[in-house]
């Protein structure tokens, strides 16, 4: 048994959300630079250049890359050999979010009731996904998720007979429908299998993978490449004003499913794809 104080978790969460909002990771920056070289639209090229410059400015001045500093999504892998002392872990995470958004000058974008819509003024509560795993560590992944792209995400319960063609059609249709709204270039996260909510969580989790990391299943690597090709041939381009840079990457995660089903979820994130992690 290893003891970790809740204060350590709170501090980690605060630091992760501030860092994620200020510093765009190298894998995303490298992709943006790559696409800037190959983009066929002149105005598209210029926009990609400005996106990179903006990320550099944010990092230098230590301000948020984008004003939509997101709803705070947290993935926790809690080792079952860990004992947490202090306050309850969920409260510690929310306190960390509260401090990050206040002290980091991040926008408070969360409303308490989806219909009544009064701002909570501290960006809490976070959306937290817990996994109990072996070991005596806690892995925390923080993802400020902007809603321009979240709003364009979709889920569909396909029939097994729809097969991979059904998945391709649904993904391409979702990106086409999203058009300029999710701030292309986007990253497309796809969850295939499980149940309805499992597919949705997988699609979000896939967005936490580095863009440089290959899928460890070659079949899905091929499908990711094929979908990226289909998506970038739609012509949507940077900001929907035409071009070949509609998506920087497609990421797939899968899970066993019921013999009667083929759930598929598409979670889109914008070019400001922000996530940071730590292992305590």
């Amino acid at each position, binding site marked *: 048994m290893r003891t970790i104080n809740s204060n350590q978790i709170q501090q980690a969460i605060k630091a992760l959300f501030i860092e994620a909002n200020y510093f765009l990771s190298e894998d995303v920056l490298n992709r943006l630079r790559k696409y800037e070289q190959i983009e066929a639209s002149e105005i598209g090229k210029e926009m990609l250049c400005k996106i990179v410059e903006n990320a550099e400015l944010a990092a230098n001045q230590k301000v*948020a*890359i*984008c004003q939509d500093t997101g709803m705070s999504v947290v993935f926790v892998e809690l080792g079952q050999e860990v004992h947490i002392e202090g306050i309850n872990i969920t409260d510690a995470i929310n306190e960390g979010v509260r401090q990050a958004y206040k002290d980091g000058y991040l926008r408070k974008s969360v409303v308490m009731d989806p219909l009544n819509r009064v*701002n909570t003024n501290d960006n809490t509560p976070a959306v937290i996904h817990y996994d109990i795993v072996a070991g005596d560590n806690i892995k925390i992944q923080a993802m400020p998720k902007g809603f321009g792209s979240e709003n364009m995400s979709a889920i569909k319960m396909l029939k097994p007979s729809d097969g991979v063609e059904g998945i391709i059609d649904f993904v391409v249709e979702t990106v086409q429908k999203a058009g300029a709204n999710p701030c292309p270039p986007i990253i497309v996260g796809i969850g295939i299998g499980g149940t309805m909510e499992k597919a949705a969580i997988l699609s979000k989790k896939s967005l936490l993978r580095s863009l440089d990391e290959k899928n460890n299943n070659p079949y899905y690597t091929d499908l990711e490449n094929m979908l990226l090709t289909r998506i970038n041939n739609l012509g949507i*381009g940077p900001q*929907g004003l035409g071009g070949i840079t509609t998506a920087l990457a497609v990421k797939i995660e899968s899970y066993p499913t019921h013999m009667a089903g083929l759930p598929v979820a598409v979670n889109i994130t914008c070019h400001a794809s922000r996530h940071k992690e730590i292992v305590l």
Partner: protein
Amino acid sequence: MYKKINTPLSSEVVKSLKVGEQLLISGTIYSARDAAHKRMLEDLDKDGKMPIDVNGQIIYYAGPCPPKPGSVSGPYGPTTSGRMDKYSPRLIEEGLMGMMGKGDRADAVIESMIKNKSVYLAVIGGLGAYTSTLIKSLEVIAYDELGAEALIKIEVEDFPAIVAIDCEGNNLYRTEPDKYKNKFDINMINR
């Protein structure tokens, strides 16, 4: 290649703006998101007026981060304009001449733009940090309790935007993507 314009706009200026033109805007603009739009129209229904006279004005669909000490504004990029589609035709009828945000607009908004001579400008989404450097002053005009969704008056200098839909209804979102269909090959990035 950039055309400089000042606010408030006149009908002549609006009519002169052609789709695809890149602009640098200076002067006062107002920013409002969904909640402020809803409140403005509720005020108009109830009191016959809104907290601002929209005649000739530009509304920027955005809500900023709080400013760090010593700076005028926090990051201040555009939000998705489509969420304001429900409210825009009414504001255009009240004299609103410009809207600024990201993404395509509904047909009903475009029809109202053509009829009343109004223009829609695209701002690059996600350039929050850069955009904040162009804001010279910032003042909450109404609905302070909405936080980041308040109605805000800002002064900008050389604020870049692209004429995405002009007052004749020419629309980049609907004409440009076709030109770039089937021009991508995966080897372009895997090389």
